[in-house]
């Protein structure tokens, strides 16, 4: 046996035979390691069998997540995240269509902002006249359809202005 502490001892006080043995051992270990194919060795190991023997729950119970998270620099992580591809995958139109704008305007200060920034009495009157005209249009149209006893629904809008039909 070679005592590793012997290296720390001055060369003058070391046994010459031990020194030779030390050198031979180091050389043999170097040769052995260089001759060893680590990939071959790893291929022979059955990792599944090894992992089956590991109780991950026990391991995880021993992990202190708070300590781990304290060591994580969230800003550095976020700086490395490329948000553009992520945002490209978000369908903003779908997201916006799910917003109830009526409720949003009624419940937030957004209503006051819009009211102060857009239109005056003229715009208000014009909106009302247009709205009333549309209502009367629909009223007249319903009666005409009834008088003509039309069963097939009439096209509501020109083809290019109709919303795209969903693919089957």
């Amino acid at each position: 046996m070679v005592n590793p502490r012997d290296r720390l001892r001055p060369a003058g006080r070391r046994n010459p035979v031990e020194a030779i043995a030390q050198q031979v051992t180091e050389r043999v270990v170097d040769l052995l390691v260089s001759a060893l194919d680590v990939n071959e060795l790893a291929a022979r190991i059955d990792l599944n069998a090894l992992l089956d023997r590991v109780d991950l729950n026990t391991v995880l119970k021993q992990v202190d997540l708070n300590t781990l998270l304290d060591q994580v620099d969230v800003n550095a992580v976020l700086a490395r995240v490329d948000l553009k591809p992520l945002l490209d995958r978000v369908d903003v139109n779908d997201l916006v269509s799910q917003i109830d704008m009526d409720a949003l305007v009624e419940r937030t200060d957004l209503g006051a902002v819009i009211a102060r920034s857009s239109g005056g009495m003229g715009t208000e009157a014009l909106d009302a006249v247009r709205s009333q005209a549309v209502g009367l249009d629909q009223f007249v149209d319903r009666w005409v359809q009834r008088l003509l006893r039309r069963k097939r629904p009439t096209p509501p809008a020109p083809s290019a202005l109709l919303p795209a039909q969903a693919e089957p």
Partner: protein
Amino acid sequence: MTVQPAVVSYQGHYAGSVSRFTAYAIDLVVSSAVFSLALAAISYGVHIVTGHNVNWNRSNIVVAVLFVLWQFVYFGYSWAVSGRTFGMAALGIRVVGTDGSVLEPRRGVVRALVFPLSFLLFGLGFLGILVQREHRALHDLIAGSAVIYSWDARAARLRFLARQADLAPPP
């Protein structure tokens, strides 16, 4: 004065008879007023330059021809350039191609040229606005055009809600 939520869903739909006739009535008033003002301006100019008074007689054939020409310019130019007249802009409607595309200037001019045809036979040409499936009058069928709602009803609805929210007492 309310803006009902239902009107938002009619954006881009074929415009109905009330909107179209109201728009035409506004156009008739506006174009006649502009024509009268123009005649008054000409009379004033002639009086300043020559000292003579010019009285335009409505039954005068020259005035009638000028009025018809002015009507053609008023409607034809408006439809060819922007697809809508002053009255149509006020009512938020617009002339488009049959497929809903922007009206070609050529079609706008044709529409103005054949527009008087709809007045023939006691205005039977206008009956299409009421009974035709796409609310197209005779001049629409000839010119290959249609009239749709083009005003931003969604923005109008938001403005209405905003006013309501602004007027409501704080909780």
